[in-house]
């Protein structure tokens, strides 16, 4: 993690480009008279008055809760499912056709299905998110298990490790880099499904607010909602990479040595 000149340069390029893009948008929209493209200061002041803190508890908190529950459910189901498919030839044969079918469904389709199954409510949103997120997690876990070096499992076998020790001390850590690949893919799906579920069947939440503002000709409100959704996505990704860096420290050390 030493700060090399290349790293510093990369950082300044990133910050510079971002600042330039914001500056250009600012200038282009500064004296905009179109009601659909408000100026940046207008959007920011709307953002402040909407989210700090008038609608924070009524819309942001429910959205975060739905996202977290759906994602958590997907991990809790997806990882064991992936391991079971990876470990058992029978499970693989039984689940492959179903998994292939489920995976090929366009994710938005799940929302109407969830509404008719569970009616409008928390369960329907959590289900929509979880159902789509399970597959990237399960398939990456399965693939990671299949790609394990046989010596790892032979060592566990030769030393007579019991099932739980083998699972928690050997298999899960060994597969964890691939599990995180699955998590990173599905967190993007989770935000997507959250917005869809909130727009199709909800009376609060950030996704609902964007649609509601647009339909009520509150264009600055719509943009403020979009900005909030972007921040939510960035936040979810940041939490995930923080967890990844903690859990996979050994893995990054290893790669640092090999490369």
């Amino acid at each position, binding site marked *: 993690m030493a700060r090399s000149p290349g790293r510093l340069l990369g950082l300044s390029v990133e910050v510079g480009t971002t600042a330039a893009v914001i500056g250009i948008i600012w200038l282009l929209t500064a004296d905009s008279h179109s009601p659909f493209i408000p100026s940046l200061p207008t959007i920011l002041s709307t953002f402040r008055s909407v989210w700090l803190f008038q609608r924070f508890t009524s819309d942001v908190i429910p959205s975060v809760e739905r996202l977290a529950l759906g994602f958590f459910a997907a991990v809790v189901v997806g990882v064991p499912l992936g391991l079971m498919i990876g470990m058992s030839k029978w499970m693989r044969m039984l689940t492959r056709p179903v998994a292939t079918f489920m995976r090929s469904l366009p994710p938005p389709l799940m929302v109407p299905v969830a509404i008719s199954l569970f009616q409008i409510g928390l369960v329907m949103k959590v289900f929509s998110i979880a159902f789509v997120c399970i597959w990237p997690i399960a398939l990456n876990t399965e693939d990671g298990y299949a790609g394990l070096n046989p010596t790892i499992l*032979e*060592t566990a076998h*030769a030393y007579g490790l019991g099932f739980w020790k083998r699972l928690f001390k050997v298999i899960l850590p060994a597969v964890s880099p691939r599990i995180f690949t699955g998590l990173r893919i599905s967190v993007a799906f989770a935000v997507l499904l959250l917005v869809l579920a909130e727009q199709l069947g909800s009376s609060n939440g950030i996704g609902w607010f964007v649609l509601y503002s647009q339909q009520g000709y509150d264009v600055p409100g719509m943009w403020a909602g979009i900005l909030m959704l972007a921040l939510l996505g960035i936040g979810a990704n940041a939490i995930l990479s923080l967890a990844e860096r903690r859990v996979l420290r*050994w893995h990054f*050390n290893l790669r640092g040595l090999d490369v």
Partner: protein
Amino acid sequence: MNDDATPVAAGKPGMALEVHALGKTFVGRERSSVAIGEVGFEVADREFVTVVGPSGCGKTTLLKCIAGLMAPSAGETRFGGARVSGPVSDMALVFQDYSRSLFPWLTVRKNVLLPLRGGARSDREQTVLESLEAVGLTRFIDHYPSQLSGGMQQRVAIARALAVRPRMLLMDEPFASVDAQTRADLEDLVLRIHAEFEVTMLLVTHDIDESVYMSDRVIILTTSPAYVQEVLPIELPRPRAQDVTKAAPQFASLRTHVYRAITQAHGDTRRSTTAAAAPNPVELSTKQNSAFLV
């Protein structure tokens, strides 16, 4: 070889390991390949036996069958008189590929601690400390394997094997992936452990010098499929030392003997198995072996 032998009911006294007419055939969809033809030998308690053979002759397969990691197609292994049908807690295995066999997500301490069961936590910690002391690595107890050199990693693997207090240590080409100096150090370390811990040793190697230097007996295998070609007693005095032992005239003649036996086996089977030409399915990946024999 074993036509008139009746199955042994109980272990012979003083025998740690008995391998009876062991055979292994890998059955494939297209064709089958015979990795081990028929191999039989015994290892006495506290004896140091080395199995040597050309690379790809089925040594690793043989060791996996003996360790109970792989079921043999014919014959059986008895350890302390009991038939081996799965991994035995009194037999510890040291793999060639230490970088995979040690778990990179665990520290040295936790790697050695992992297979230990029963007793108080403090007793287990004490065992870990003693085992690491035997290989001279107590200073690195809280390091991760990736922070250690290859030779040090293999010493951790040996410490992990010792920690389960095994009656017998099985080692599969344990020094094949380290440099020459480290290899000599590890050989002497294993000889010291053999003497101090009074443990029975079965080492598999393709290195002829190593087989003569380490052992009480050398079992020479033929080219794939493996048969026992010769069992050679090594009557060099112990303790052995890299400089003195390897300079002895007796050492030179023994190593020449093994060398000729192996190269002759290589020539013989090359003629007789060209028609089958089934590549050994297990050891194809060990690239570094051939240099020692060709």
